[in-house]
């Protein structure tokens, strides 16, 4: 019995629990709402979940490091608007993606470098930088973003699309491949091992030959990169540019990561858990909307459920057990 409890409390236990909850929610939805498990509905959920999953890659890495990235929603908006605008102006889309990626990497690197080098809480740095980025983008488009997405991107994320024989758009299998890659890198690469170690005990890291500034710079750069990817994908999803398209992702990425079993103090969690968290959040959202809740009520219910889930298996230790 004790072994079960310790396993449940461990990261793997939490991830398993999260997947179970997602499955239970889906079952509940299927029973309560007609059409909940219709092929279209499932495809739609997979697409929405995939978008959140991409945006949450960065947050996962950053949280394991012991930090947090509040610039993700702003970078999503930035990538979304800049890509649309430039493509609409006639630029080659590959060049646009390259440019947006490089800029995102630079912004993220700045976030990580400044936070770690000067020992400033990343919450503040990423928040400030995010605001600057959003403001600059709004200034550049004078508040009226224009442009569009190339047909290829729209097809990539379109709910009605299909990837060869699979009845899902290419986004979904691509995400599966990406997820496998991320999980592999986190578990079995020098970068991944150092990431966990640094999050686990920042004081011991330099003596173990881990360069904290370098790790933070790289990790935050990656976070911004994947946020930009999400921004471009969202452009394909909605069809037009919108600077605030990333706003919901501010707290949803944090919620997904935490529901997936990561600890905000660092050193714990993995991307598989985040995916479970993403599924749980998507299920809750779809379920509540399907049950006829108003958006306001959905938001409130989401808050309650996140708190309930985290209190089940995301509890921190009492001070006395940290001595």
């Amino acid at each position, binding site marked *: 019995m004790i072994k079960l409890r310790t396993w449940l409390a461990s990261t793997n236990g939490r991830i398993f629990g999260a997947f179970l909850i997602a499955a239970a929610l889906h079952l509940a939805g299927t029973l309560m709402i007609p059409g909940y498990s219709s092929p279209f509905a499932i495809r739609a959920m997979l697409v929405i979940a995939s978008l959140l999953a991409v945006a949450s890659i960065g947050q996962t890495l950053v949280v394991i490091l012991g930090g947090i990235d509040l610039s993700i929603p702003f970078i999503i908006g930035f990538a979304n608007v800049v890509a649309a605008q430039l493509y609409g102006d006639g630029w080659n889309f590959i060049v646009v993606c390259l440019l947006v990626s490089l800029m995102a990497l630079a912004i993220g690197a700045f976030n990580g470098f400044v936070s770690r080098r000067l020992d400033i809480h990343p919450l503040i740095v990423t928040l400030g930088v995010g605001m600057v980025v959003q403001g600059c983008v709004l200034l550049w488009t004078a508040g009226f973003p224009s442009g569009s997405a190339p047909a290829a991107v729209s097809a990539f994320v379109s709910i009605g699309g299909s990837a060869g024989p699979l009845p899902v758009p290419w986004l979904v299998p691509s995400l599966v491949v990406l997820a496998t890659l991320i999980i592999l890198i986190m578990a079995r690469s*020098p970068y991944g091992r150092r990431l*966990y*170690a640094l999050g686990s005990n920042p004081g011991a890291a*330099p003596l173990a030959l881990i360069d904290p500034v370098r790790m933070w710079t790289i990790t935050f750069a990656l976070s911004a990169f994947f946020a930009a990817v999400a921004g471009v994908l969202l452009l394909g999803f909605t069809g037009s540019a919108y600077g605030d398209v990333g706003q919901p992702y501010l707290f949803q990425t944090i919620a997904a990561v935490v529901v997936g079993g990561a600890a905000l103090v660092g*050193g714990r969690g993995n991307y598989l858990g985040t995916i479970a968290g993403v599924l749980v959040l998507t299920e809750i959202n779809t379920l509540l909307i399907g049950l006829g809740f108003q958006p306001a009520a959905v938001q409130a219910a989401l808050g309650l459920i996140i708190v309930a889930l985290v209190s089940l298996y995301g509890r921190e230790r009492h001070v006395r057990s940290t001595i």
Partner: protein
Amino acid sequence: MVSAITLHARNLVLRPGGQPLNQTIRPGEIVGLAGLDGHGQERFLEVLAGLHTPHAGEVRLERGGQQTVITSFRRAVDNGITYLPRDRRATGIFPTQSVLDNFAISTVGKDARFGILSFRNRRKRYEGFRERLSINAPRPDAPITTLSGGNQQKVLLARALALEPDMLLLNDPTRGVDVATRHVLYDVFRGLAREGMGLVVLSSEIEEILVLCNRVLVFRDFELAAEMSGDAMTTETVIAAMFGRAA
């Protein structure tokens, strides 16, 4: 394979207005550092490790006739000097990580093939040290916090030795470690010294220094108060030097 390096501390001043000290740590020596808490022995060790810049003076490493000045921790490690910190909880172990992870973290590149770590290789390296240091860890994949303090310290020592150092700087290595493990560690240290590795051991227990070290440097007020070896090295003389009184 351990190659012979000599560490020279030249005109080292550890605090403003302190007396400069000169010391040479030779291959195969076990030098002890003693003193009342906070009297500079730790600072001296950190300077040797490149973790602290001295107020004046420098530390030079000599290998095969070539001399290098130690200016940083990274430089020291690259040149074969490895440091084992004092407080394993604060600056040693990574509590959420497994025993294997904790062992391999400093040498994580050694197991990498095309960017991916070979867990088998890591396990193999770990097994070598497990045997040598008698590490008692029935489940190496479990978090390191499941091990006793003594075994945790052995894993940290294994981590240091995995770097294949030529000189080992140890900051109170048997602190919080049970008696049986201590003796295992002493044997390991002596074995390393026999292989030609130089060791500098800071210890807060005089008996340990007497048992383990060839000579001892006693610090008082961030200066070298006394240096003793052989028969002159007794509990009384060391304590007297620690308190600033000649025996």
